[in-house]
């Protein structure tokens, strides 16, 4: 074996298992799902399915599914905007006003809940948002005249739960681009007499835009595909989303081809967003 052959064997031996695994668990399943979405019924138990466009036609024409899609997108926007408004100032504080050991500790404190169990954290909101619960009582103790906090099993509860779940993403991506800003730029602007507000508007904000955008995509995409949070926190009214309907097709109604078509519609939206944001995302992730 010469050196080139040996090299080739090494590469193949090292990467083949990961390749095969990902092809079997990611590529082939997505292909199978695409195939299923064009069938009249699932090809199990000797049934003879026929090719059809009916699933996509009903998704694209029936008001119910257009409405569900819109609700999912709306939820994605609400959660993302809330995360920007809450997360950006936090990232700014972390990157520019906290230093050394403190910053390290704060960083860890923000990442910790983010990496703990998402289901458990969603569940924890059912106890926090209930009327006459611990938090409700605390609020009334401080401000006696307040209306009850009772928003559990509603759309706002879903938004609160999702913001809680994804806020750290926004803080982290904004932090990364904020702390990469060259200090001399800001100093130069100050020396030239720019007031703090102008420095922020003309230098800090534009330079941190890539991080803001990365956070937006990283939050928007999983949120429009969420089903567990709306199920647990949304009750009947707040859980009618694309994600929960897909879950139902696969676990309750067992209309897999239709569920597959819904999943692919969602995937198409996701890919569109990722495609549009790809150039910006790549830049931010490289610095992260």
């Amino acid at each position, binding site marked *: 074996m010469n050196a080139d052959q040996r090299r080739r064997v090494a590469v193949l031996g090292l990467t083949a298992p990961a390749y095969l695994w990902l092809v079997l668990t990611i590529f082939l399943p997505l292909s199978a*799902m695409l195939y299923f979405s064009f069938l009249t019924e699932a090809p199990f138990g000797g049934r003879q399915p026929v090719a059809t466009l009916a699933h996509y036609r009903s998704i694209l024409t029936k008001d119910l599914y257009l409405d569900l899609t819109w609700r999912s997108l709306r939820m994605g926007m609400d959660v993302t905007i809330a995360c920007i408004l809450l997360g950006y100032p936090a990232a700014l504080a972390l990157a520019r006003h906290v230093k050394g050991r403190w910053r390290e500790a704060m*960083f860890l404190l923000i990442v910790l809940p983010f990496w703990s169990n998402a289901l458990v954290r969603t569940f924890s909101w059912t106890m926090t948002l209930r009327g006459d619960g611990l938090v409700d009582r605390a609020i009334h103790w401080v401000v006696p005249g307040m209306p009850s906090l009772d928003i559990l099993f509603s759309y706002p509860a879903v938004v609160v739960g999702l913001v809680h779940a994804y806020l750290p993403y926004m803080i982290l991506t904004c932090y990364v681009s904020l*702390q990469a800003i060259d200090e001399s730029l800001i100093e130069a602007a*100050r020396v030239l007499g720019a007031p703090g507000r102008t420095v922020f508007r003309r230098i800090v904000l534009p330079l941190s835009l890539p991080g803001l955008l990365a956070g937006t995509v990283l939050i928007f995409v999983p949120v429009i595909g969420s089903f567990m949070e709306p199920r647990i926190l949304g009750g009947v009214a707040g859980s009618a989303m694309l994600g929960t309907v897909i879950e139902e097709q696969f676990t309750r109604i067992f209309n897999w081809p239709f569920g597959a078509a819904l999943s692919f519609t969602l995937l198409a939206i996701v890919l569109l967003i990722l495609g549009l944001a790809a150039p910006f995302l790549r830049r931010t992730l490289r610095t*992260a």
Partner: protein
Amino acid sequence: MKASTKVPGLLSLSLRLYLGLVLFFLYLPIAVMMIMAFNRSSLYLLPIEFDTVWFEALADNWRLIDAGVNSVALAIVNTVVATALGTAAALAMARYRFRGRTLLQLLLFPPITIPWLIIGTSMLVMFFWIGIGRGFHAMLLGHVALSLPYVIVVVGARLKSFGTGLEEAAATLGATPWQAFRRVSVPVMAPGVVAAALFAFAVSFDQFVISYFLAPPGVSTLPVEIYSSIRKGFTPEINAISTIIILVSMALMLAISRFYRFGGER
């Protein structure tokens, strides 16, 4: 960061205060849940009467215990497989330029960027179709796929930060490729591999969506079992087990942070 001292103190102070509020928001529900796990009332009624009755009840809840055993076993097997496969792939990607490198990188994207709902349902469809079915093995297939990107990124970052200089030096000094790997590459990689393994464990232990679609009745993991309990109606035992899970997850993350710096350079 010198310039931050020049920022008006009031703005700086209020931003720092705000950061504290954000942390309060992040930890509030977790704290409430933990407190309620020690409350005697099964209906979460106040005032709180301290009791460990729900933790004791866990000892008799065989559904949760079985699910817990499944979760830990799955996470351990997942850690071993994903760390081995991922470390090998990361080595190849860091040390060699080869055709198909971009394809492999591309295959690593879906597990992190596409909603798990889509991945989970498509695995269900595919596995059912070709006869793999649902169960422990199917969940393992899914968990490893989700863990691989993390392992490859974490180990890859470690390898990249060291470059190939040390290995080349070893080779120049007469080491065989195997010796160079054993005595140079392995010690260099080790902290990255440990962090990657902890990540893989955490990914699997906390994974709900994929497991949910691939768990047949009777074989579930803790998150799947908790989800069905929540949907059936609240039980404070779930608070107790959730408290334990959160503490385990956080301990894991603290362990990782000893090997891996979040957010890069500080």
